[in-house]
Structure formats: structure tokens, C-alpha cells
């Protein structure tokens, strides 16, 4: 065994060791989720050395340099964060924009719209690269295939999902079978599969290459509105439903593996943590819940009295989670059993519909019906900046991987890029 290279992964922090074994090049990932600005690089390097035979005395210094770079990356946001200014306004959609997403590099973003199209944008120039036309109704969900990002999947109210080549803008597969609106669609990160969630109370799994339906996941008693693949081997899929339950499915079989019960109203969002050991769910019953995936039990319930929880999001390392409330507040908690409340963001005058962390975790982005998006210090809860300019409520928002660009999508038919 011989170590060839260190590869750095900024968000969440990690190192990949590239090495040869019997002449074959292999990779080994080391997650450094605990790394933050207070970490002692030397201590961590020694810990890794003890666990990894590949790390020898002669590369220890190099490892320390890598860790130092990662640490700087976390610090670069700083306590005050970067200041964002309106950079481009994207205005060629004819009707309200629904969901929005960046590609991995942050060079392109995709938007879905009520005008039945999905558009691929060049972020730098603010120009349209491709318009994906073919859906017969609203394009509601949009997603790239991470990390390659050469394909796009769209979920539409026309009851189908479509897979597109991002380069040519051609539809490469239409995924039929749902009898209700498709409201979520996602690629499996390491496999040629797409999962869809629909108002017809089912989720489905498709083969991207052939467009064939592989499984239909039946079990929810109401609309399925959220879904996500696990982040590791993509063999597990989680769905959240208006029936108040969360289901775990194994993509190799069609039966439900586990039903997580506890919410007493519609589930509004569900997300895996980075290592897929935890699940967070949001519900209109006014609570967010944290679940242990292996034990399949609820480890914490975070209630916000008198408000519905409309969205939930982990930070990239999975150490904290944020919730969005119909009371106009966002809240940040520690993602552990005791779920200590860390920050409370108040300022929006209407409901917060989306919430997400900056990749390095220093700030929190919220989108609201009050026509503004806001950036908050995720540790103190102070509002750092208000992104105003949209003429109508903001439906969705996202940070680019580098954390230097934000996109907001609004009911006013426009998208704004902030830098």
C-alpha cells in the first residue's frame, strides 16, 4: 500500500486518501465533521495517524497543512460574514418560479416555473444557457445529478418527471407512472436512478438510462411531498408525507423498511444528515423531530408553540439543524439528543418558508413570504443582511458550494443572484 495524494473536501470538511494497493488506485474518505475554527490541527493529525496505516511520519506535516487549509476555509466566512449584493436578475420566466438549485461548482443554476419550463442559467453572465421545454404543466422540482451535474431531473404537475442532458437541453427520458403531481425528484448520487414523490401518495424509483420504473413505494396514506436518498450507499430512501409519517425504503426491494411515527400533522420536510445517521423532519404540528436512523426512534422533539414548522435543514457537517416557522422565525439547534437551542432568528414579518446553512456553516439563509431573504449569523442569531428587491414572496433560495453566491426565486417571476 502506498499513499499517492491527499484530496481535500471543503464542505463538510474531509480528506480523501488516494493510494495504490496491489497496483490498483483506490480512495479512502476520512470525515472531519468536528473540525472548526477552534480545532488543534496537530492533535487531529496525530489522531488520524494512529488510525491510518497510510499516514506515516514523513507525510504527517503534509497532513497538517491540509487540515490547516480546511480550517481556514471554515474561518474565511468570519464572524461578520461576506456581504452580498444583487449581481444579476434573471427575468425571462413568464410565470412564477418554483424551485431553484445550483450545480456543484456554482457556475450554473436551474429554475422551475409555472410557465412549464426549466431554465439552465449561467451564473456569471446571468444569461440563459438552455430552456428545457416539454412538460405540459408546472415544473415544480428541479435537481442536478451531484456531483457530476451533467443531467437535470424535473418533477411536474403534469404527473411526469423528465431527465435532461444539461449540455444539449434534450429530454433523455420521461418518467411516467404517477397519477398525481410529481412534487419531488432526485438522482441517487452514485447510481443511475431517480426517485420521485407524488401527490398520488406514492414514491417511485426509475432507471435513468431506460426510463423504466423499478419500484413503486406504496404505504403512505396521503400525499408524499419530500424525499431524499441516503448520502452513503444510496440504498436507502426517506419520504415524508402529509399523512404525518416518515417512511424509510430500501431501494433494492419495494417494501417499506420502517415507518417513523410521532408527528400529529402533515410532514413538511425531511432531510438526512451528512453521514445519514440522523434524520430531521418538520411538521405542521408545530414541531421538528430528530430521528436516529439505525435505531429508528425519535431522539428529540423541538416544538415551536403556535407555529407550523415549514422547513428543516442540517448544516453540511450534520452537527446543527435549522427550522423555519410560520411565525416568521428561524431557529438553530444542536443535532444531538439534548438538542440545545443555539440561536433564534427573529425579524421576518411573515412566514419563513425555506432555510439553509452556508456550506461552511457560519451563516443561515432564510426565504420568506415578506419578499425578503435574510442572512443570519448562525451562532448568535443576529441578522447580518437583508436581501430585498423581489416584488413578491420568495419561494426558494440556495447557497452555492463555495458559499460566495446566493440565488433566490420568487413568485414575481424572477430569480436574483447575489454575490
Amino acid at each position, binding site marked *: 500500500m502506498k499513499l499517492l495524494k491527499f484530496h481535500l473536501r471543503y464542505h463538510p470538511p474531509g480528506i480523501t486518501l488516494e493510494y495504490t494497493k496491489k497496483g490498483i488506485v483506490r480512495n479512502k474518505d476520512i470525515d472531519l465533521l468536528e473540525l472548526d475554527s477552534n480545532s488543534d490541527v496537530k492533535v487531529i493529525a496525530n489522531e488520524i495517524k494512529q488510525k491510518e496505516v497510510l499516514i506515516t511520519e514523513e507525510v504527517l506535516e503534509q497532513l497538517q497543512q491540509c487540515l490547516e487549509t480546511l480550517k481556514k476555509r471554515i474561518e474565511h466566512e468570519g464572524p461578520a460574514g461576506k456581504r452580498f449584493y444583487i449581481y444579476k436578475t434573471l427575468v425571462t420566466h413568464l410565470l412564477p418560479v418554483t424551485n431553484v438549485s445550483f450545480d456543484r461548482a456554482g457556475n450554473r443554476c436551474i429554475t422551475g416555473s409555472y410557465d*412549464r419550463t426549466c431554465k439552465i442559467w449561467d451564473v456569471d453572465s446571468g444569461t440563459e444557457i438552455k430552456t428545457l421545454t416539454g412538460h405540459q404543466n408546472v415544473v415544480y422540482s428541479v435537481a442536478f445529478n451531484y456531483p457530476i451535474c451533467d443531467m437535470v431531473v424535473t418533477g411536474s*404537475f403534469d404527473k411526469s418527471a423528465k431527465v435532461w442532458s444539461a449540455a444539449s437541453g434534450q429530454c433523455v427520458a420521461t418518467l411516467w407512472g404517477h397519477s398525481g403531481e410529481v412534487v419531488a425528484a432526485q438522482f441517487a448520487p452514485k447510481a443511475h436512478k431517480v426517485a420521485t414523490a407524488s*401527490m398520488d401518495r406514492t414514491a417511485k424509483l426509475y432507471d435513468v438510462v431506460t426510463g423504466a420504473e423499478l419500484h413503486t413505494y406504496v404505504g403512505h396514506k396521503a*400525499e408524499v411531498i419530500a424525499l431524499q436518498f441516503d448520502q452513503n450507499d444510496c440504498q436507502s430512501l426517506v419520504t415524508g408525507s402529509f399523512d404525518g409519517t416518515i417512511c424509510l425504503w430500501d431501494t433494492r426491494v419495494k417494501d417499506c423498511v420502517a415507518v417513523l411515527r410521532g408527528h400529529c400533522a402533515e410532514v413538511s420536510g425531511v432531510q438526512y444528515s451528512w453521514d445519514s445517521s440522523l434524520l430531521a423532519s418538520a411538521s405542521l404540528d408545530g414541531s421538528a423531530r430528530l430521528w436516529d436512523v439505525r435505531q429508528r426512534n425519535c431522539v428529540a422533539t423541538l416544538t415551536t408553540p403556535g407555529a407550523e414548522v415549514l422547513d428543516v435543514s442540517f448544516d453540511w457537517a450534520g452537527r446543527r439543524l435549522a427550522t423555519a416557522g410560520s411565525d416568521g422565525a428561524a431557529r438553530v439547534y444542536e443535532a444531538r439528543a439534548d438538542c440545545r437551542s443555539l440561536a433564534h432568528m427573529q425579524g421576518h414579518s411573515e412566514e419563513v*418558508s425555506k432555510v439553509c446553512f452556508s456550506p461552511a456553516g457560519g451563516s443561515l439563509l432564510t426565504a420568506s413570504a415578506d419578499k425578503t431573504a435574510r442572512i443570519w449569523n448562525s451562532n448568535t442569531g443576529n441578522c447580518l443582511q437583508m436581501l430585498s428587491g423581489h416584488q413578491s414572496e420568495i419561494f426558494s433560495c440556495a447557497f452555492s458550494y463555495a458559499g460566495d453566491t446566493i440565488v433566490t426565486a420568487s413568485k414575481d417571476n424572477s430569480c436574483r443572484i447575489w454575490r
Partner: protein
Amino acid sequence: MFVLFGVSNFYKLTQLKFAWLSRSGQINGLLNILRKLRSNPDKELRLLLLGLDNAGKTTLLKQLASEDVNHVTPTAGFNIKSVLSSGFKLNVWDIGGQRKIRPYWRNYFENTDILIYVVDCSDHQRLEETSLELAELLQDDKLRGVPLLVYANKQDLDTALPASEVAQHLGLHLIRDRTWQIQACVAIEGTGVKEGMEWVCKNIPVRK
């Protein structure tokens, strides 16, 4: 089919506020759009408000929700509001009527319980255009059998055609496959709006 023309008590009701509205609701966020898309539980209805641009749809919607009607701008998308009336929760979808976005009206047809069509009765030039649009709506499969309420709006203007003449232009008397009603109104004052909604509540179709 017995059809009432709601013109008779029209002038008595000027400036009446809507006591029958116990609560109005703003509907925000993508998630709420999904909530309103659901095949509605009992006592929750989906009303679709259509008509040419400048017909007065958004003013009507705001009037229903007891909101200020003075600052209405052309709708470049849609507005949704929930209104309680006669024990029903009415989810009213107001869709922009500009020509270039009319082809997208079909986005909103699914699960519609009542179709409300608003006509600017003072816009004589576009009477034919509005009746063609309506005729097309009535032919759509997804709106088959859905009761139709036509608001003959802007009756306060001198040039406004009376509701009976508008009904004739629209060919309402030829409709055989659904119940319908025409209601004269002045959306900006709220006159006649209530009567229309009462008709709506009485003509809620039985769910399949």
C-alpha cells in the same frame, strides 16, 4: 334548468360589508400551494377565477378577503386566498389574464369545484374575445360539468352592458352540461359579490 339573474336587488347592497366572512387567509409558500392542491377534504372548495386582463379578478379576490382594493396591479402569475363562507372554506385561485399567459390557465384546472369567470362589461371591443376564451374553457375535459359563475363586472360604469346582454353575448343560454349563473357586480365597491358567492355555496357539486 332554473336560472336566476341576480340583478334585481343589486342596488340595495351598495357598500355592504361582508359579515359572512368570518376570516380571510393569506396563502404563502410553495408548501401551501401543495396543501391547496390536495384533493380537498369535505367543506373545502377550490374556486378558479378566470377572465381577460383588466376584468377585475384580483379586485374581486381582495374584496372577498376584505382587503384594500385600491392598489391592484396586473397579475403576472396568480394569487390565492382562503375565505370562509357559509361553513365552507373557499380556496380562491386568481389567475393572471394577460394574453401571453392565458395558455397557462390549464395549469390550474385540476380539482376545480367552481369556475368563476369575470367579464368587464364596459369593454365592448373585447366582448367577442372574452366569449371565445370562455367557450374554450367550457370545452376542456378537466372542467367538464364544473358549475360556472359569471361576474358581469363594472356595472357602475355608464357604458357597461347589463348582465342579461352579456349573458347573451357569451351564449350562456346554450350551456347544457353544467349549472351556471350570471351575477352583476361592482367588484371595486363589493356590490353583488356576496350574491355570487351565495350561489356558489348553494351549487357545490357532489364529489365523485
